[in-house]
């Protein structure tokens, strides 16, 4: 693996410590400013074509107990990252959470807390988690399709992998680092990418040979996709220029999966330009599909309804397609799953539903 230059990262981390230190010297209550990381503060960036944080900022100051704890933890985390860089190690987010056990007052009470703070630190320093030598717990998802990847293995040798011939039915597993120093695309011969929410549906398409019959690259999202999966999809789209189609369940949570792939997630809006693929399309299942294909449904729960309503005020869902579909779903009071298509037989999704939808979207001809 190439040895990255971390001096820039270190000076940015030190700048945070210096800011706090100087506050003390100037008899100011120490504070850090960072963009407000909520739905109300994401704005569409015309240049980058993705959703980024807006101008609203949040102050984390030592005048409140919570603010002071946050600053103390930030200091500890920054110091820990510096130390890792120094001794050339990396750790998972979970490992860092456990390491914080030894941080006395600064210890985290949940991993959620430490993950959020790591993101805060990215935002404050304009660095990426990878720069901090922190990696996520989960591996990226799986890929099958007519695509060759060259991966730099841990033995520092390059290995070419064809994502149909060189892999089993489970497909190629996306590593946590998908930057050019780790993987490069050596040949893509496909018409489109289908990013699929559930493992069950991914396996159905694989078993039915949809990747070969329809010249498709199949990517398993595994629910809310990991950063590496989103980055992988983005690179695939940028380097091959083929469209990305997102295929999920028909419920508010699935729409958020699409939004994080296409527009950028609220939590990671500071790095949307690295992770989001504006050229993604939502394939289905849509609320209209429920009506058109007469799919089996469940009733919306209370949480579903409030999630849908919240999406109606989410700036990312303000186009007429989403507004129409969400309102329709609220009216129906129903939701459905990808795998509900099995109502018409196991081949229905590959023989009928997807071809019809692809044609409708102008991806393939009827």
């Amino acid at each position, binding site marked *: 693996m190439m040895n990255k230059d971390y001096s820039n990262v270190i000076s940015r981390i030190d700048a945070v*410590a210096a800011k706090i*230190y100087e506050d003390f010297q100037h*008899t100011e*209550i120490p504070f850090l400013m960072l963009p407000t990381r909520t739905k109300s503060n994401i704005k569409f960036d015309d240049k980058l074509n993705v959703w980024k944080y807006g101008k609203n900022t949040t102050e984390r100051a030592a005048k409140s107990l919570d603010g002071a704890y946050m600053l103390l933890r930030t200091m500890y985390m920054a*110091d820990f990252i510096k130390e890792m860089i120094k001794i050339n190690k990396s750790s998972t987010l979970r490992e860092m959470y456990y390491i914080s056990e030894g941080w006395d007052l*600064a210890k985290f009470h949940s991993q959620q807390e430490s993950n959020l703070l790591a993101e805060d630190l990215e935002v404050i320093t304009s660095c990426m988690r990878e720069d901090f030598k922190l990696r996520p717990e989960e591996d990226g998802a799986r890929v099958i399709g007519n695509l060759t990847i060259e991966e730099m293995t841990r033995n520092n040798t390059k290995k070419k992998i064809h994502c149909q011939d060189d892999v089993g039915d489970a497909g190629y597993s996306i590593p946590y680092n998908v930057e050019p120093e780790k993987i490069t695309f050596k040949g893509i011969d496909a018409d489109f990418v289908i990013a699929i929410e559930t493992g069950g549906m991914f396996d159905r398409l694989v078993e039915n040979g949809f990747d070969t019959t329809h010249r498709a690259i199949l990517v398993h999202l595994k629910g809310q996709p990991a950063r590496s999966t989103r980055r992988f999809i983005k690179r695939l789209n940028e380097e091959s220029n083929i469209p990305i189609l997102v295929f999920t369940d028909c419920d508010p949570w699935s729409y958020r999966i699409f939004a994080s792939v296409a527009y950028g997630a609220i939590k990671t809006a500071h790095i949307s330009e690295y992770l989001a693929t504006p050229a993604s399309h939502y394939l289905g299942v849509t609320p209209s599909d429920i009506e058109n294909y007469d799919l089996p449904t469940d009733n919306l729960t209370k949480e579903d309804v409030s999630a849908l309503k919240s999406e109606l005020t989410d700036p990312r869902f303000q186009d007429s397609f989403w507004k129409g579909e969400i309102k329709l779903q609220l009216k129906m009071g129903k939701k459905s799953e990808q795998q509900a298509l099995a109502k018409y037989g196991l081949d229905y999704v590959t023989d009928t539903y997807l071809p019809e939808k692809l044609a409708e979207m102008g991806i393939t001809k009827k």
Partner: protein
Amino acid sequence: MTKITAHELAKKQKEISVAEFFERNKHILGFGNLTRALITSVKEGVDNSLDACEEANILPDIHVEIKNHEDSECKFIVEDNGPGVVKKQIPHIFGRLLYGSRFHTIKQSRGQQGIGISAVILYGQLTTGKHAKITSKIAEDRPAVVTEIAIDTNKNRAEVIGTDTVHWDKPTGTRVEISIIADYKRGKRFVYDYLQSTSIVNPHAQITYREPDGTEHIFERTSEALPRKSIEIKPHPYGVELGTLIKMAKHTKSRQLNSFLKSEFSSMGDRTTNSAIEKAGLEKTLNPKSMTREQFLSLHKAFKKVKIMAPSTDCISPIGETLIKRSLKHETQEISPEFIITASRPPSVYSGNPFQVEVGLVYGGNLPKEAPVRLLRFANRVPLLYQQGGCVTTSAISSIDWRRYGLDQPSGKGIPSGPAIFLTHISSTLIPYTSESKEAIADVDEIENEVKLAFRECARKVQHHISKKVRRAKTREKFDLITRILPEIAKKSAHMLDKPVPSLDAVITKIMDVVWIEDLIEYEKVSREPVQTTLIEETPQEHEGGTITKSKIMVVNYKRTPQKFNLYAVIPEDAVVGTVTPKPTKITNNYIKWNLDTIPPANKIDVNFELAGLEKGDFDENDLYIENINPAYVIGADKWEGD
């Protein structure tokens, strides 16, 4: 139908003795059923003993024992360490109803009618046919006398059945043994409740209770001081009944109406006397013994038309807030309540009768959260166990909207629900009971109003206590922040940059931006050494040993500018002030005041004072106030609103 002549009727009309009357009406005395009979017996016995001890200035040590026989016959024994009763008085005191020294005087006392213990003896005699046994010892060097008595219900006289002398270890005391028919099984719990309640309002008494199976309960003495003696007063014209007025006139030694009024009534000076006589259309020189009924009636009416000064109220002997709190604390130990708060009203008057209301509130701990609040009612240190619904104290409590104070109360009326006990004590020279059985206090506006005011004050104190706790918790957080977290942030940032740790003082005053007052109370046991009394003006009482309550207050200026202000610490009235530092500006019965020196930013002043004459835990929370500073700048004390 045969006509009956007056002579024939006269044969049937014979004098009904008082005892006979009560024999027929035993329900009005509280012997209505077998459970009530048990409790009334215990109550009368204990009241009698407490009164006897107090009259003789003896701290009461009372032993109650019940022996349960078959056929619901109980032997009930009350023994005290009082002065005893001389032999020849025994049949009068124990065997005659309406006999005693208290009936004709006006002063605060437990019993008022003088029917107490003799009624129990009478009840025992009527139900079991057995005689009461009275043992009494009046001096250390004399033997105890045992007298067996029966009551002749026709003559209202006691018959002495037999006497004997025995050896008794006690220096002095009285022991009463009476057999009665009663329902011990059902009454058991009430007896315990009654004795516990009695102990709460009689902190100077030690009560031991032995159940038939040998179980012993001790309700400990929590105060070594006898209650202030209540003073006998003359009747006030506003409260006197026509009948009493006539009777008083018959027995007076005065020969003229004006001197009669002046000497036999309270608050009657020359002016009021003359104007009352004038309003009644009578002559000053009239002989009261020869006045007609009509003349008495117009005089009685005239009293109401004249403005007469209220009677003096110093005849009232309240329990005192400190003692109520201490007693409640002692008796609710097992509940471990969150707090106990008391309030006491100044004495007041209804229809010429002085009275005073004291209340207490126990909150939290293991008390049931859903059940209605438990009401403890007392009159002249006697628990009232029955007819809660018909009592003025209950209606006063019910008319307060308790929802504002965090208790459940549908529609804001009625007895609230929540984890609390409410205590009400009314002291008066004449408690207006609703009936002879003395179980509920009548609906007197003045009393209801005072009870309401007392509970409102209590409720306000509760709110104050709670908001203070919340505020303290918040400041505690900030204190954590500046003392623990901020130094760590500074240290870590310095460490990362390899620089010296920066100074925090200025940042700390910026973050806190308050004057912070923190306090602590400690207790120290002292023996023999007299408590210092250097700083109070009046002659202090000598205290041989006891507990010193030490209050330590720390005042820290976390503002950015120097601060100068006055501090007040409220102290209990019955406490004696010891060493105070720094030198106070003023000490009164209720507070200590300091004009504190200027405190520069990030500096502090320690303020200490000592209190004697209190038990451990009597003073367990500082009540601090500030003056000459914006109250919003200060945490830990409130604005001083004046004396």
